[in-house]
């Protein structure tokens, strides 16, 4: 026998299911008025410093179908690379947003401030990125990924450098499609499968 560690095990995840919107974004789900407004409507407010951008895309299952029921959360630094709560962070950037695939088309839109590069623990800079968490029916544990920007210098990013199959790096790149506009599609499975993170 040995000493008892006393370390607990994380509670097991379960799927958010098809009605995750009821609990997280009830107005979107057709239950207006339970709360004054849905949580995480926007990751910023008026006066946020930096470039306002819009990222649109869709999320596809293994058959290529654009899913209509996924919900997303994003978390990001402000325009200067500071997370909310850190010294000097932009008070107009909450950094957190909830958004969902459209129930008819599957399209999603995230309107936010383009984040700045963030310094990692080892002093290396992480290229500008937005952390994304995805839940839906059939996803048993929420999927983490990141949105990077194809028009930034991503050459020294520590996470991207760890992707062995270099073409897969492209799955994490939002592509410019116009002034302040980007396209980012997510593929859960199969050809072009998005890199998901265990982080």
């Amino acid at each position, binding site marked *: 026998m040995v000493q008892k560690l006393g370390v607990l095990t994380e509670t097991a995840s379960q*799927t958010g299911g098809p009605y995750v919107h009821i609990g997280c974004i009830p107005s979107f789900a057709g239950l207006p008025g339970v709360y004054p407004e849905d949580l995480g409507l926007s990751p910023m407010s008026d006066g946020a410093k930096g470039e306002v951008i819009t990222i649109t895309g869709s999320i596809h299952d293994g058959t290529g179908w654009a899913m209509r029921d996924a919900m997303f959360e994003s978390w990001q630094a402000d325009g200067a690379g500071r997370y909310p709560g850190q010294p000097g962070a932009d008070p107009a950037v909450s*950094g957190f947003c909830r958004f969902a695939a459209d129930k008819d088309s599957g399209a999603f839109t995230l309107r936010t401030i383009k984040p700045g590069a963030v310094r990692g*623990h080892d002093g290396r800079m992480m290229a500008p*990125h937005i952390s994304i968490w995805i839940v839906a029916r059939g996803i048993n*544990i929420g999927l983490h990924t990141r949105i990077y920007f194809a028009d930034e210098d991503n050459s020294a990013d520590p996470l991207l450098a760890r992707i062995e199959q270099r073409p897969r790096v492209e799955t994490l790149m939002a592509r410019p499609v116009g002034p302040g506009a980007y396209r980012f599609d997510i593929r859960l499975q199969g050809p072009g499968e998005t890199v998901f993170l265990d982080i």
Partner: protein
Amino acid sequence: MTETGRLIPRRRDAHPVPYDPDYKTTMTRSPNLPLLSMESTPSEETGPRFGHGLIGALDNNLIVNFSKGAAPAIGERIRVHGRVVDENARPVPHTLVEVWQANAGGRYRHVRDTYFAPLDPNFGGCGRTLTDENGYYEFLTIRPGAYPWPNRGNDWRPMHIHFSLFGHSFGQRLITQAYFEGDPLIARCPIAATVKDRGQLDQLVAPLDMAASRPMDYLAYRFDIVLRGRRQTMFENKPEGM
């Protein structure tokens, strides 16, 4: 309490398998390729914080929050309560807990739920609260009904309440479900069965807690939740390789 250090890596064997043919939708919604594993960074170690100003007085009372107190929802009145702690057994204070559930007949108030059990005009089905300084939370609600769902020929969901938890960092984000002690449908549920570790599945089943019930009013169920913890060490900030 200190909130420094890298997140403890997730024990994937403590979680449901992503691909499970008995839960058909997972077959096309689970990644085929391995997840990219790496140590957490400030992007995962920070996360949104929500203050008490967010929470309305009725938000954690699903019996009356949809009717704004005008009329109670139909169903067995229950209190669901517990503590949120991390893997180091430390309480997770002031963190947002969101719940959603079907009504007493097993019907969700959602445009896509077409089950013919009736909607309850006084039940919405969502609630939220913040844990207190000891990580404690509670809700008052009605016992959700079991319901059929299209999967295999005759699958039914056991009674359950969905829980969404933030912790204090984006990497702790968790959605899970609380089941109820004694429900024979748990053992038949392909979603519950995606958790292959029996002890971990048992931790999703809330026991009846008579001591926390109120005579002539409500039964109580206890549901404690463990979120990812952070590694505590004095050797955190050295560059890799040193």
